[in-house]
């Protein structure tokens, strides 16, 4: 885990080879992104066991489709898309939804007002995840890493390859949509 991981271009050049170098590249990708992917996937599928299953499938899919990725976008954006699709397929197979069967609530209200006091942590967590699920991929990616993982825009920019200004705009769009979704739920 503490070995030096080269830049993305080097990782890709190794990954696209047909010899042992490709496995080295996969090892770098696992070392670099497995923790971040774990937390992201666990928010979606909730349990450690399911997260482990999905995470393994994600890396196997990266390996299987390694030649499809040609570096036109940031590597982690491509991986995130695979992870999201894999998690959603998993939930569909399990006939579950991203917003139910929570082991522990993702969020709860700071202060129980008369209005919000009626909303349980599980309910608001489920609605929040439903709202996140409605977002376009890029906004979902940015919102998850900004809101849940507390990454700075500069750090997200390294993962997505986008500009900080563009990330801010996307984040506020995402927040606006989530607010609208939650308001709708709270008013019912």
């Amino acid at each position, binding site marked *: 885990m503490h070995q030096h991981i080269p830049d993305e271009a080097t990782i890709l050049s190794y990954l696209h080879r047909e010899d042992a170098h490709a496995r080295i590249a996969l*090892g770098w990708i696992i070392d670099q992104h497995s923790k971040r992917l774990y937390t992201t996937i666990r928010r979606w599928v909730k349990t450690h066991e399911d997260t482990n299953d999905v995470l393994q499938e994600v890396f196997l899919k990266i390996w299987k489709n390694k030649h499809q990725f040609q570096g036109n976008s940031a590597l982690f954006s491509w991986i995130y898309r695979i992870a999201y699709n894999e998690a959603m397929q998993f939930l569909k197979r399990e006939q579950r939804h991203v917003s139910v069967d929570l082991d522990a609530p993702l969020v709860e209200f700071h202060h129980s007002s008369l209005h919000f006091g009626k909303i349980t942590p599980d309910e608001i967590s489920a609605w929040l995840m439903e709202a996140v699920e409605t977002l376009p991929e890029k906004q979902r990616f940015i919102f998850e890493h900004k809101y849940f993982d507390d990454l700075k825009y500069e750090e997200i920019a390294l993962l997505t390859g986008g500009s900080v200004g563009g990330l801010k705009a996307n984040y506020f769009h995402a927040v606006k949509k989530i607010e609208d979704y939650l308001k709708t739920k709270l008013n019912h």
Partner: protein
Amino acid sequence: MKTNEQHIIDELKKGTTPVPGDDYFAQLKQDIFDRLEPTVKIIPFYKKTWFISAVAASIALIVSVTYFFDGNETPKPAVATVDWNSVSRNEILAYIDDNIADFEAETIAQHLDSIPNWTLAKPVVGKITRTNTARSKKEEKYDDLFKDIDKQDILKYLEEEDIELDEEMLGT
């Protein structure tokens, strides 16, 4: 209801997503590699069959060469060699004289033909080291060996011994 200035998500307290320790991620990596489809395995050089065969053959060759070579880098043929240093001209002639009945005419002719420039002369100064057609410097020293014996003398000798050789066999 919330005002436009304050977002609902700002009122939310986030929980923490549990993250396993490094051991889990090390095992995860191993599990993933275990599940990869087998690729062309890199077989260590020393495990390749042809390499083992080559090494065995090389060892056999080295043993053979070591056995047949002396320490002076002088190769010895596998068959018995003639140490011309130890055989004088008179001894050679005496041997031929005693055993001429055992020599076939064709064999003698072939030998005469194969050493056209060799003549029996003074005692041998070196060893016959090789039997191939390329002549080493040592072999060239043997040129003097038969220089004092003319082919005609040999023919005369064979004639006296009632051995028939035609001109073609003798290469004359």
